């Protein structure tokens, strides 16, 4: 009973109720916090503006707006079409060839974009294309949504940056910890798509599979493919930080568009940047308001209580703790926006992870895969929702077709949980 009158818990319940009644996430968080500050004296009123401002005043977090701008530019420069052409020559003629091409393109786009939403925007033109070769529309939508979940797993990654900011872990290490899980996702999602396609008789597309064609397409996509080389290479060699890499990516995309692609007019930039600014605004308000919540949890001793319980239930076994946290993440990911979930959950579970001797880089990769899957899971899956909107398919139908892909990602989550090397192998190189 005492637990239920703890301001942290009361505030959380207020937040959930407001959220379910269509209150914007930031306001639901903010009002939930305000409620317990005013009525339960959980904090001085003056705390809020400082936590809001302070949570945003961070150099690593600056990578967020930059990668969002880079994502907008990737969509506009038409880089994804060029990468699709390339991937199609390799995979197109297999059963379900266009779906496989979509997944591969998603993985490649993810190596230059930092978020799932940016990736789904860059991939969504493939939905009508897949429908045209005879795949069911909901299947095409689910494939695109699955393809977008590489976004935060394969570096660069907004999720990893935010996790790194909260836990003060090395962002380059976290980035590289995403490579293994990302490749594993590609293999498992790819195999699943292949099997579904064979079973349902989805054909490939007729492509001329020659080296000449391949090199021609490679040459055509080369400028775009250089972006991840510069970004990840720069971080890998220590030439620049993740934030600087994001700025370099923006400048590079600007330069190749000016010099080669010529798709974005100079006069388009203010509108494009304003649209990006609004997206950034949504993310920062969620970050700022979740931080106020986290402040209350911290000072009301909720993290300590959670740690105590997790340790008691698990007997301190790190695998059991990770499994329990995974379940918690899946449930939160079903409803919550991933950024908010990260800000709310990480401070709560971090002490248990430290107590159970879990590597925080390993957990960062695991959490990112888990919360990336949240873009697929109903009732609130932002990636699937956007794909369904573009594909003009009801969300519920799309969610049914996404179930096999959700199952695939659950397998990835289990593998990454029990085999830390999947995440830590590449992280060891930076």
């Amino acid at each position, binding site marked *: 009973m005492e637990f239920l009158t703890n301001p942290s818990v009361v505030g959380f319940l207020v937040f959930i109720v407001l959220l379910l009644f269509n209150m914007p996430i930031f306001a639901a968080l903010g009002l939930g916090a305000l409620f317990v500050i005013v009525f339960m004296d959980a*904090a*001085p009123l*003056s*705390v809020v503006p*400082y*936590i809001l*401002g*302070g*949570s945003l*005043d*961070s150099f690593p977090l600056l990578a967020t707006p930059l990668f969002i701008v880079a994502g907008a530019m990737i969509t506009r420069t038409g880089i994804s079409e060029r990468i699709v052409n390339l991937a199609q020559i390799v995979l197109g003629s297999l059963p379900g060839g266009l779906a496989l091409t979509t997944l591969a393109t998603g993985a490649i786009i993810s190596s230059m974009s930092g978020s799932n939403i940016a990736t789904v925007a860059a991939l969504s033109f493939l939905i009508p294309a897949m429908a045209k070769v005879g795949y069911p529309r909901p299947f095409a939508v689910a494939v695109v949504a699955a393809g977008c979940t590489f976004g935060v797993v394969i570096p660069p990654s907004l999720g990893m940056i935010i996790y790194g900011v909260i836990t*003060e872990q090395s962002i380059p290490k976290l980035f590289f910890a995403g490579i293994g899980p990302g490749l594993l996702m590609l293999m498992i999602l790819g195999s699943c798509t292949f099997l579904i396609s064979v079973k349902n008789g989805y054909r490939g597309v007729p492509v001329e599979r020659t080296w000449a064609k391949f090199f021609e397409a490679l040459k055509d996509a080369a400028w775009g493919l250089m972006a991840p080389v510069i970004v990840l290479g720069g971080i890998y060699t*220590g030439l620049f930080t993740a934030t600087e890499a994001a700025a370099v990516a923006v400048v590079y995309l600007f330069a190749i568009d000016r010099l080669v692609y010529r798709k974005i007019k100079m006069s388009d930039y203010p509108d494009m940047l304003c649209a990006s600014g609004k997206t950034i605004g949504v993310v920062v308000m969620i970050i700022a308001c979740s*931080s106020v919540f986290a*402040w209350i949890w*911290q*000072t009301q001793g909720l993290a300590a209580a959670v740690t105590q319980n997790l340790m008691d239930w698990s007997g301190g076994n790190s695998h059991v703790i990770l499994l329990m946290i995974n379940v918690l993440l899946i449930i939160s990911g079903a409803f919550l926006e991933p950024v908010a979930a990260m800000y709310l959950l990480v*401070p709560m579970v971090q002490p248990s992870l430290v107590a159970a001797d879990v590597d925080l880089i390993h957990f960062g990769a695991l959490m990112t895969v888990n919360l990336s899957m949240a873009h697929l899971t109903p009732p609130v899956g932002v990636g699937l929702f956007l794909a369904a909107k573009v594909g003009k398919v009801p969300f519920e139908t799309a969610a049914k077709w996404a179930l096999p892909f959700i199952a695939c990602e659950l397998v990835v989550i289990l593998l990454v949980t029990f085999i830390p090397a999947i995440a830590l192998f590449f992280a060891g190189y930076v």
Partner: protein
Amino acid sequence: DTIKISTTVPETSNWLVAADTFKSIVEDKTEHTVEIYPNGTIVTGNDRVELEMAQAGAVDIIMKTTIWLSQLKPEFLVTAMPWIFPNAEVAMSVMDGPVGQDLSKSLNDVGLEALAWGDGGFFQLYSKGETVTGPEGIDGVKIRVPGNPIFVKSWEAVGAVPTPISFAEIFSALQSGAIDGGVATTPLIYAKRFYEVAPKISMINFSFESVGMIANTGFLAGLSEEDQAIVRAAALEGMKAQRAAAAAEDAGYITQMKEAGADIYVPTEAELNSFKDIAAPIYDNFKAEIGEELVSTVEAAVAAAN
């Protein structure tokens, strides 16, 4: 009630010795409980915000160095003046006296009061080349100093080339040869492994930082007179324990760096004086900002304590 103490340094810092001592005394003698939050967890890990939150009373007590406090009142720069204190004992005796009390009072109009002062350490010199024993050894050498004008001007006066590199980049800049050395407190030289690339360390006691236990005045006013006295005494006790811990820790780091192959040099009094003499013109530059009287008072107090 609960008293919230925030600091942006990690649990392992010797500053926490002060906080822990304070906690045990206050909880023992009063009805209050003390909660200690290291790593800046309740101030978003941000020093600027922490200082603002203390002024607003959003946290009750913070621990901040004189350099940070100089962003509110420039007179706090007096402890940072080059070679103004010969060693930590003298520096602490000055901060315990009228100078420390006056500095504390100067914070009252922004809602703060320093309960007690501790030892934040001296900036020492680490470099790659020959061991630096006097100003002539540093002539034309590129060294990294914190961006504060006092530091920059002092090293220009000594003849070095101060290079403004962000703290995170020091290690790689030393490796690449972009800088030849820098100044930092002993715990930082040890923790950031600067001694591995710049193993010549001269204990020149260049500039001192004092760390204050800073309370919000509204919080203090809300305590009974009896509790206020206990809180102030506990802060003094805490800072005494911190000074001892800092001295022991520095000695330990020096031993460990020596064992790791670093070359630690302790200059003679004459060598230190030659540094101080060559930096003397700096005092005229900063007297207007810091206050001529304050600088003279500190110099007199140092002379008396020596």
